[in-house]
């Protein structure tokens, strides 16, 4: 009787171990090509009834000077810049447009499911600077971390909604990753070159845009309805605007940032959980 009991226990333990080994293999990560549909599925938006929104993000007042970057410790990169490079914190175009503002539809699209784009977006490390400085992707969409410099860079991401990562690229190479959860915004830094920083905005729909120096923004093909659109800037915080989309018409978007706003607390997602203190590197202007 004792023998049968032992046999039963043994079989149970071995089965449990095999199951654990078999099921434990999933890394549960977003390493290689991200999840989501591979083929272009149908968009839930009927193009015939869609409307548009466009306008400008502008900056008024004196723009502060951007900090200069001393690249003398990295000769390979210093050689790529004919003029001393600067940070891209506040970039204002000749027409008063504010660059590197992430504009996206914040509310109004919750009921729709959008297919994941198959095209990857590229974030390049060239001349020890992230290009672009601000990037937008859809949840599950691949973005390619590209190392054009061929020297050691690491990409250290400290999101709050998604899983963080800290990976390196020691040579000319490309790595694909994706973020599974929407988040505004994920800060990226390079620890080897402490001046390098970038931001990635992750949304679960395709209605987002990053402004250039002309400050123009355009969101095409929105279903009719009421929306809240938000504009995010790394130093000046966020501005929101309520718009109504009507079929065939273009609603106007207008965001005006000014130098007095820099004291604002810049949100990077949900409020900070005190049990998980932010990295000292997180851009959190208090």
């Amino acid at each position: 009787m004792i023998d049968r009991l032992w046999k039963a226990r043994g079989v149970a333990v071995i089965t449990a171990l095999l199951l654990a080994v078999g099921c434990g293999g999933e890394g549960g990560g977003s390493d290689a090509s991200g999840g989501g549909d591979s083929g272009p599925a149908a968009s839930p938006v009927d193009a015939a009834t869609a409307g548009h929104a466009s306008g400008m993000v502008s900056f008024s007042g004196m723009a502060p000077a951007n900090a200069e970057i001393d690249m003398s410790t990295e000769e390979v990169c210093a050689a790529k810049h004919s003029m001393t490079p600067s940070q891209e914190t506040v970039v204002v175009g000749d027409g008063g447009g504010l660059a590197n503002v992430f504009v996206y539809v914040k509310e109004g699209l919750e009921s729709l499911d959008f297919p994941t784009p198959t095209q990857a977006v590229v974030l390049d490390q060239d001349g020890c600077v992230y290009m672009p400085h601000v990037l937008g992707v859809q949840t599950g969409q691949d973005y390619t971390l590209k190392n054009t410099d061929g020297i050691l860079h690491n990409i250290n991401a400290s999101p709050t909604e998604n899983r963080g990562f800290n990976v390196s690229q020691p040579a000319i190479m490309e790595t694909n990753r994706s973020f599974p959860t929407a988040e505004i915004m994920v800060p990226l830094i390079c620890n080897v070159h402490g001046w390098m920083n970038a931001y990635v905005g992750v949304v679960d729909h395709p209605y987002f845009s990053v402004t250039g120096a002309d400050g123009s923004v355009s969101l095409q093909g929105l279903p009719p309805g009421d929306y809240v659109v938000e504009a995010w800037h790394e130093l000046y915080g966020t501005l929101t605007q309520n718009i109504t989309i009507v079929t065939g018409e273009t609603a106007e978007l207008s965001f005006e940032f000014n130098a007095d706003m820099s004291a604002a607390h810049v949100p990077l997602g949900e409020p900070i959980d005190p049990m998980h203190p932010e990295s000292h590197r997180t851009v959190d202007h208090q």
Partner: protein
Amino acid sequence: MSTTEKDIASAVDAGGQHDHHEIPWIRKYVFATDHKMIAKQFMFVSLFFLVVGGALAGMMRFQLGFPGQPMPGAGILPDAMMAPTPDGAIMLPEFYNSLVTMHGTIMIFFAIMPLLVGLFGNLLIPLQIGAEDMAFPRLNMASFWLAVPAGMLMLASFAVEGGAAGAGWTSYAPLSTSGEWTGVYLGQQLWLVSLTILGFSSLVGAVNYITTVINMRAPGMTWFRIPLATWSLFVTAVLVLLAIPILAGALIMLLFDQTIGTGFFRSDVGGEPLLWQHLFWFFGHPEVYILILPAMGITSEVLSNRARKPIFGYHSMVLALISIGFLGWIVWGHHMFQSGMNPLLGTSFMISTMAIAVPSAIKTFNWLGTLWKADIHLDVPMLHALSFVSMFIIGGLSGIFMASTPVDIYIHDTYFIVAHLHYVLFGGSLFAIFAGITYWFPKMFGRMMNEPLGKVHFVLTFIFYNLVFFPMHNLGLQGMMRRIYDFTQYDFLQPLQPMNQFITLFAFALITTQVLFVINFFWSISKGEKAGNNPWHSNTLEWTVPSPPPHGNFAQMPTVFRGPYEYSSPESDDDFLPQTTPPRDGPGPSSGVPEPTPTPEGAEA
């Protein structure tokens, strides 16, 4: 003969707890409680991890020998480890850090420690003291079966996102407290959980060993008749018992820092990074003696036996074991001379560290003394045991350099330290393990290992090993740091690239040579020359029983009349005199054992 069989049967019956009928396969081979089977279980699992640890080292050496070069065949490894570039797969720095960490962790905790303590502790202690099994056979089984999931978790950590732990086997805080510093997230936590579980495995083992040695010695087996192998394992078990709980505490504190936001080791929330180092090394220094004392015990056994001569200074050898065990608790700060702890402590730890050199030196001189005017048989176990002595001399002497605090300023965290630790752990412990496995293989499997193949394996291993690790002293003296993914980033280290390549090539040769041992091992289990009870003509009790011994070990309770090293004694016609052989004149007052009850004719000890 029939009288003897009846005696055996009645002795076993009198034992009481044993099963008299066949136990099921799963109880004999899987959930075994027989110490000899558990010893073999530890052996097979640990040898597997030894191979894994070696493979990790091979990959590290590739990067050091050919920095930044694509590694042939590495394309099969995931992108998280080897970056795909147009030229091929290049190792990532975070993977290199994981290799460094996991090579050390696996070799120390899953190879050397379970081989010395799990294999030899289990195999030898009951047999050498004349006991039928360990004091707590089921606890013994728990010890092994706790180690297995610990090992599986450690291996599994390679597969999770962020990879395996990457903060060094010493896991210094604050680096180890967060993935934002290392790029390792779950892997670092798995490392902590795995080692905590393994800690429990070691603890229950230690309790078992200590209890067994104190309580279950056969009549006549006084403390100073215990063979040095068992003595060393006993002292080791005491160190395990006292040191592992400190490690477990530190591991749990670090796990809390990583997961629930405590700040024991993070200064940004009021903690103290140096606290981790103190806790870790307070465990860590006794740990390194855990890794060497059983090796010393094994060496003493093999040396004395193969030299056919009593061990020189048996009592001092025991005292030296105890002194090392004791002094090992007050030297931990020598790992922390440059850590930022108060420099006044540097001097006190330097003095205690210099002091601990003394018992190790005594043992070394005594081993040499054992060889003096001996009758030396240079078979494979002896060759490995002699290697232990000669390589331990080098490892011990190199330790003197780092014991001197100002010299340590220069050589700390350089390859000089790497050379030192490999001379004591590989040159020392691993050669002793080879000696022990070769020597006790016949007792475990009833067959001898192949002698000529063993000699080839030894010679090649010895030569390649020295070509790999001796130059590391010089690399360290030239300033090459440890744990460095690409030392060519430093101009002053670029000239060291050819020497690193030299070391790498011989490291590959060294790793490949171990195939010979694997072949010898598995071939000999089924095809080796059959061995009798006592192929080495040894004196200790394990050689008085069949090879392999039956369940319960001894048909009759043995009686011990003398110490374990009576080789070439004038009292014997042979050049050995087993501990259990009654004296020619009968047990007189000198043996310290009362007259035994008259034994039935034909029943020999």
